[in-house]
């Protein structure tokens, strides 16, 4: 965990912009002078992860060559995994191979990437095998997310407490707090909203923050505000899958047609959770029909 001393933190802004989803900004502002070699690697990781988040997998794959440091190689694995379904199996076996290598197996970025990939595979057991020990804020935040996905907010809270002990005001701590608050629901949602509100006041609005706020609004039954936030997000990125998915949900609640957003989402992100959910629900319906008949 770099920059944890009392001195100024060179990568602070870059990390924040990345966490808050301003990926292009992160890429644009990555020219930071006087970085130590470790910091430079971390910087490159953030930049390449930003490219991945923007969907530029091939760029990452071609830019990171064999000579690059382990963390960067790990980032390259993620790009390969996400670039095509055909690559998945081979990538996963590479990841497992690397993790087994004692010289690099403990690398924080490698473990983070492994956790992310196994999360995509919905193999939470395998993911946690490598991430549960934590060690960086990123890893702990990922753990929080895994536990939320497993509906184990009790475990997520433990992870969060570790993060809070380290730095309560860290962007990832704040984000993870908001995630957990949303997962726990009820009165906690207000707090989550305030956290995102703080972010939106302090940093430029991103699709991520707008969506997060909109999700809070929807959880609180405030669909009108959610809709306007989502439309703002759609303005920023008309293809953002989460924006489209949330717009589908939101439109239904405000009594508007959702079909256009849904077909857009189906076209651009056929693998999205919502799309999958709808198609499996359709199957369900047919099955139920049979059983009742």
């Amino acid at each position, binding site marked *: *965990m770099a*920059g*944890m*001393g*009392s*001195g*100024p*933190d060179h990568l*602070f802004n870059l990390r924040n912009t990345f966490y808050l*989803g301003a990926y292009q900004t992160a890429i644009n502002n990555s020219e*930071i*002078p*006087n*970085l130590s070699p470790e*910091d430079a690697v971390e910087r490159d990781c953030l930049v390449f992860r930003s490219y*991945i988040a923007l969907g530029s997998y091939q760029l990452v794959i071609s830019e990171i060559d064999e000579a690059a440091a382990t963390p960067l190689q790990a980032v390259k694995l993620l790009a390969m995994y*996400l670039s095509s379904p055909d690559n998945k199996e081979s990538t996963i076996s590479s990841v497992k191979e690397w993790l087994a290598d004692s010289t690099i197996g403990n690398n924080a970025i490698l473990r983070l990437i492994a956790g992310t990939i196994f999360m*995509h595979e919905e193999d939470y057991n395998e993911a*946690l*095998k*490598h991430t*549960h*020990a*934590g060690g960086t804020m990123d890893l702990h*935040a*990922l753990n929080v997310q895994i536990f939320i996905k*497993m*509906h184990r*907010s009790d475990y997520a809270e*433990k992870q969060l407490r*570790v993060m809070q002990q380290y730095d309560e*005001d860290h962007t990832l701590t704040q984000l993870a707090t908001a*995630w957990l608050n949303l997962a726990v*629901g*009820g009165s906690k949602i207000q707090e989550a909203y305030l956290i995102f*509100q*703080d972010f939106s*006041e*302090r940093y430029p609005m991103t699709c991520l923050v707008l969506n*997060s706020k*909109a*999700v809070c609004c*929807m*959880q609180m039954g405030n669909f009108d505000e959610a809709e306007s936030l989502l439309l703002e997000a759609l303005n920023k990125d008309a293809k953002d*899958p*989460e924006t489209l998915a*949330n717009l589908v*949900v939101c439109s*239904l*609640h405000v*009594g508007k047609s*959702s079909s256009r957003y*849904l077909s857009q989402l189906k076209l651009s992100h056929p693998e999205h*959770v919502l799309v999958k*959910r709808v198609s499996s*629900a359709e199957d369900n*319906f047919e*099955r*139920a029909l049979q059983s*009742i008949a």
Partner: protein
Amino acid sequence: MNFETSSNQVRGLSFHPKRPWILSSLHTGVIQLWDYRMATLIDTFEEHDGPVRGVHFHHSQPLFVSGGDDYKIKVWNYKTHKCLFTLLGHLDYIRTVQFHHECPWITVRVWDIAPLRKNNTPPADEDDIMGLTQMNSDPFDATVKYVLEGHDRGVNWAAFHPTLPLIVSGADDRKVKLWRTNETKAWEVDTLRGHSSNVSSVMFHAKHDLIVSNSEDKSIRVWDATKRTEIKTFRRENDRFWILAAHPETNLLAAGHDSGLIVFKLERERPAFALSGDSLLYAKDGFLRRYEYSTQKDSQVIPIQRRTPDSSPSLNQSPPPRTLSYSPTENAVLISSDLDGGSYELYIIPKDRSEDAKRGTGGGSAVFIARNRFAVLDKSTGQEEVVVVLVVKNLKNEVVKKIPLPIPTTDAIFYAGTGTLLCRCEDKVVTFDLTQRLVLGEVHTPSVRHVVWWSNDMESVALLSKHTIILASKKLALLCTLHETTTRVKRGAWDDDNGVFIYTTSNHVKYCLPNGDSGIIRTLDVPIYVTKVSGDKIFCLDRDGKNREITVNASEYMFKLALMGKRFDHVARMIKSSRISGQAMKGFPEVALHFVEEEEGDERVRFNLAIESGNMSVAVASATNINEEDYWYRLGVEALRRGGNSGIVEFAYQQTRNFERLSFLYLITGNLEKLSKLMKLKKGVMGQFHNALYMGDVKERVKILENAGLLPLAYITASVHGLEDIAERLSIALGDDVPSLPQGKTHSLLMPPIPVVCGGDWPLLRVMKGIFEGGLESANEEDDVEEGDWGDALAEEEEEDGEEEGEGSGWEGLELPLQLDTPKVSAFMTPSQGMAVSQIWSQESLLAAEQAAAGSFDTAMRLLNRQLGIKNFAPLKSMLLDLLIGSQSYLPAFSSSPVVPLAVERGWSESSSRGPPALVYELSQQEEKLKSGYKATTSGKDENLTEAVRLFRSILHTIPLLVVESRTEVEEVKELVTIVKEYILGLKMELKRRETRDDPVRQQELAAYFTHCNLQPPHLRLALFSAMGVCYRARNLATAYNFAKRLLETNPTESQAKTARQIVQAAGRNMTDATELNYDFRNPFVICGSTYVPIYRGQKDVSCPYCTARFVPSQEGNICAICDLAVIGAEASGLLCSPSQVR
């Protein structure tokens, strides 16, 4: 302290009751009149010999009275600067003089001849009364009421309490004594000891329970009048205090000492406040109050007085709050004051009024830096030196972290956006990012007292010091600096819409534009503290902490803003509506000119503006119109000054026939041709000669001289220039008087200088620099600065710990609940998956909609089948899907990791825990649909009716998947089913009727059945009207008569009624039916929903378990034709659409 003078020893003081003036009478006999607000000496009055101890302003007239050691009393008029008259007659030093507040009297106290007599004579106990304009009939009726004995040495001063029967006195025995009086006697209450020399003056404070005394020991002391303890001492180095005076209305005090006077007040009047949206939170009289701008509601929020249990509520216990910081989302307030060298109190305002506010206190001043974090400037005394650190705390008042300050000398902190602070230190202010621990920017400024952010976007900030305002950007790039040299800056606020900073000084409301342009908006009688600006309204707190609203004329700065923003349409409109005074135009002549041109404006104004802006062509045109010598002259001067316009200069000179100037102009422009023409105009000899000289035309000169009779001069000129023949001719004419030529001097011909440019205008360097470019440039500069900052910031960062190796990295020190160093599989057991919210939903609910939302379609459908007998689910498919989709939102979390789906719950409130799923269908939507359906029905065309059926059907299809909360709503839903069912049946019959044109009997029957559906009155009327017509046309007069009668009972429209009456009349004559219908209106019936035949009472029928439509028995087992969902005649438990039905 407000104001200080230096002069000779001050012996007497008097405040002017209205104006910010104070009179000070000096030991030297001079009386000075000061304006303490502007800190200027207005006037001096010198007529007394020797010290003047008493001065007093008249409360209404421009007069004051003075009495001196010269035994004289003088009455002055300060307007005319004259001594009106002098009263003589006293035989000793005059100590005080006072006007009576009603009668034209002067009260005078004379030097006590026997100062050691231990007696006390309050100033109002008249020793001597002199009539001023008329003698009082009984001027010497003063009697000594009490003699107060107690001082050991001479009494210098005594004063009454403004309301209570108390007297306070000060004497040379260094004591201040407090006395109480009643009708008959006076006795000593207490003695206040502390002064170390003669007490020269003492008085009660008019507004607080305080006694103020001053003494020759160079101190002013403030005492608590109730507890009789000393509260505060103010000392001067070298000056003994001689006199005290209190302002009659405000709480200002003045004290005179050896080298001048001071005007001061004992408590800060500047209210502490914080702005939050529409409301203002401020501290007043021990309470936190809230003022709402829109409603002007002012209410008390919580008590904030910190006190020890037994103390009285006087200001001395806790000094007034200095700053107030508010976190609106958490409803928390931080109040910092100077108590104990700086401390803060944290209050969490309870939502419920009955609760007490949560409180926390601490040392140092505190400011919120985020919703739930605040920073405290903590001056903790270390081992040897004072260490100042920033302590970040949470709302429980617990320390979250400590941050070393970027500059150790920081003595105040201000909010600067979330996670950022402005730190004030010595001569500068820096912005400090607490999370990055980086200094983002700094600006040099005199000690900043207030920081006001432009609330719009926090991009601009105003830093207010005592005499300076600095506007800067967020990163403290300087925008402009403004100095108020004579007065002090009070408070200010941004005009949020326009980005103008509005502030108040001691005597003005002023504005400051971001480019540094400033001006006065209006003057003020008393200082106010601006809290908010909105349009042309300024909201402020006055000295008493009352909220006030002032409407100002904002047009001046709006005009300038419009110009800066190049919004010329605004500019034009403002000028047209002439809301701009000439002052505002100043500085923008070319713009103003542009607009004046368009109007029938005053030509002179136009000329002036043209001159000012250098637009010469307009000026010429304007001058031609005016055609006055003065204007031509000014035009010429300006044109010459601008150099290039010799044509205009010439024109102007010609117009005014100013030949001297004209000829010189021709000379310098080398226009010899015109010069010679001018020469020939023969306008005066001198002019001609000048021109000849300019031309270098010697012959002409000689000729002129000769013509003028100056023959010797002509001769010399001619001979010097070698015009021999002329010289000879002249010498003959002169005869003996031929002057001798000076010897030893060479002569030369004077020729006009060759001009650099001949004729025409001088070339001008055209610089098209409008007034607007300046703004753009500065904007660019700002960008540069920001880049600079960026570079600097990075350069400052040098060391950074490597990943996981830094010793100081707090990570290692943490006790992780999970084992950090041995990430082995064996050590960690992956927990089993928890239960998804949707699972919980589907376990708990008996409502089909909630099951669907949870994704359990089979359960949902089984429920619908059981409850409503629904078997045809096809129409419900899309709705079930929508319910499912609507129950989950998608939270993007960690980058490139899968999205986190979240269950959306219904009926969220701040206190709720988990709830049932949020559903996309609501009762209100169905009611909307019902209205649209009604409307379509009224329209009545085929396609409208089809649409209406579709809408009503959609209602019927939605209702099984509707969830409502209350029992009453359940009843509404059930009623809705019935209403909609009737309409679908009726409309389907009507549509059927319209199709079956070839069967008039069936047509009539369907029309007749339609009238038996339960419809809204307008629709019933339509049905009846249609049935009436159909039957009448088919000559079924009796039936038509019946419909007409029924129609008339329904309060029909006029045209309907008219037709109905006609039919009643026509059919009444012949009550027969041409054809027989299956319709007996006397016999109650229901209509079969499929076959549309009447089922009369007593006949067998079956019904739809859901929509309750009735059918002939043969339809049993079919899908209901009305709702298209349920099986006719199926067993069902009934509609379940609310959790309240289950409980």
